[in-house]
């Protein structure tokens, strides 16, 4: 997963993210690849609000 392009170094489906001090909207990108063929990958973005 990445937030605003910065990697969170997660290889599982869970990761902690240290939210910044400033409020705003951030983009989280989730990438998942197939364990048999890593070239088969899906990627989706989500918006996260910080208050």
């Amino acid at each position, binding site marked *: *997963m990445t937030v605003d392009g910065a990697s969170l170094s997660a*290889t599982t489906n*869970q990761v*902690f993210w240290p939210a910044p001090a400033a409020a705003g909207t951030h983009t*989280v990108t*989730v990438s998942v690849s197939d364990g048999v063929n890593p070239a088969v990958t*899906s990627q989706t973005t989500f918006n996260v609000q910080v208050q």
Partner: protein
Amino acid sequence: MSLRSPAAPSIDRAFGPTKTLLIIIGVLASLAAALTGCSRTLGTVQGLVATPLSTSLSLSWQAVPYASAYDVFISTSSNVSPSNYQITTATAGTAETFTGLTAGTTYYCVVLATSSYGFNEGPYSDVIAVTVGGSGTSSNPAPIISALTVWPEPVPASTNALFVASASDSDGDTLTYA
């Protein structure tokens, strides 16, 4: 001139007493079987179709009347049968998917119908062979990312938030997150 009408032909006259008795016994046996279902056997599973993927295969077949479930057997041996198999499962439906198989390996599959209604299980289907992950198989489906759960949400500034991604893969392959 006789006033009596000629006697109607009887089953005794037609077949003789011994054969008549056997016919009656046969009719009674058929009626008993029909009422109890004890001696009835389910039909053979037809229309078995396999869809191989990279490390899994999906089987589907046509429903058999009066069947309540189906036993599915697969093996790498071509003489797979209910007494010679590597993987088996029972399902009430007319489809089953086996995952975690070895790519490039040929699996042989048979299905038979079973019943909880007193019917005898049917003969097993024709054996079909399918090579998992071989050329000509369906392409490896991409994972599907369904959701990202954020806690807490909205995220308070300067706190740690937990992201949990949800994804699935239709052929059951393991997934790697990045």
